[in-house]
């Protein structure tokens, strides 16, 4: 497969190495000449100095015959324009982009960028999970934006400890999909009694996350 990558950011750099190891053909366009020089020593001729939003530079990188185009530059606007040129001028069948401003994600999707990786969201989620306490863990970022799959560990002082599952009043569009007791997962049933340290996996909507968390952990 032939992959063109714009921006030799840490993401672009490591992706290049992974793809080369997997036997793919890769070209990286990097704007900064000094960065290019350094990368040249390591990666060799796969690095080309050029602007990923310039048609001529993209052309000389062979974008016209690319199977996959990845925009991994520092700025969202650079990535958007690079992908749109790849898609509309060079008809690259598969365009991918990293983004930093979380709120730009819907735009990239509307404009037909095939895969949008929200770097900020991934990092914030990972850091949030590392904060001590009983965090609300987001288990994945489903393709359906109205859905959120979360996991909460029940504290001993939660008001719902000792209650039956059917006594819980959950926020709209939320339901419990799995309860993990002492490392054994079971499907929720109406009679199930909730205990301290139970891990509750639930489906909810982004707007109701906080309410759900309060209901599950509130004293």
């Amino acid at each position: 497969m032939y992959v063109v990558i714009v921006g030799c950011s840490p993401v672009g750099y490591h992706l290049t190495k992974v793809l080369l190891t997997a036997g793919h053909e890769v070209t990286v366009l990097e704007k900064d000449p000094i960065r290019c020089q350094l990368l040249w020593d390591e990666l060799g001729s796969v690095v080309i100095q050029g602007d990923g939003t310039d048609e001529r530079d993209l052309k000389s990188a062979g974008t016209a015959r690319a199977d996959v185009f990845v925009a991994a530059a520092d700025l969202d606007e650079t990535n958007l324009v690079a992908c749109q040129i790849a898609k509309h001028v060079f008809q690259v069948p598969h365009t991918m982009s990293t983004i930093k401003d979380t709120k730009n994600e819907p735009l990239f999707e509307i404009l037909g960028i095939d895969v949008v990786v929200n770097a900020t969201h991934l990092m914030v989620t990972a850091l949030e999970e590392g904060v001590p306490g009983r965090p609300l863990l987001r288990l994945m970022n489903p393709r359906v934006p109205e859905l959120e799959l979360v996991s909460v560990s029940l504290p001993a002082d939660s008001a719902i400890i000792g209650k039956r599952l059917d006594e819980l009043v959950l926020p709209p569009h939320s339901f419990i999909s799995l309860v993990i007791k002492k490392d054994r997962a079971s499907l929720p049933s109406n009679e199930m009694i909730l205990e301290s340290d139970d891990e509750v996996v639930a489906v909810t909507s982004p707007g109701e996350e906080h309410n759900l968390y309060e209901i599950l952990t509130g004293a």
Partner: protein
Amino acid sequence: MPGSFVAGTCPGAGVIPKVRMDAIIYGCGRLASMLAPYLVQSGYTVTALDSNLSRLKSVAAEPQIKGILIADPMMHDYLQEAHVDIAELFLALSDEELRNVLVSQVAKHIYNVPLVVCRLDNPQLQQLYSGLGLKVVGFSILNLFSEIQQAIRLD
């Protein structure tokens, strides 16, 4: 015939005129400072956005023009503060072409602003984004070319 009305059959006759017409200018420079008073005169409620305070002040000098100082990571919040969702007109006029492309498409595709004008000087980007439905304005290399041709002939 398009453009000619007979009294009483004018489309929209009897409809209560819209009280408020919002225009948003993203990027304050010389162009924006000339344009803003003109828009106010034409009946628009104008909001100007820029990340630089002195540039912003040069446009939002009059009390009718609201200025919002922006920081890029919260761009969407500032657009909402400027009521982009009810705006009739959005003009991206900053010096940064790629930024103009991004915010223009946010205005057009996320907030469905009916008329979006995007300033672009790069002829390749002009062609691409005209094709993708933005109203593109900017420096035209073709005009410049013909002007130079004429200038040479005059000499």
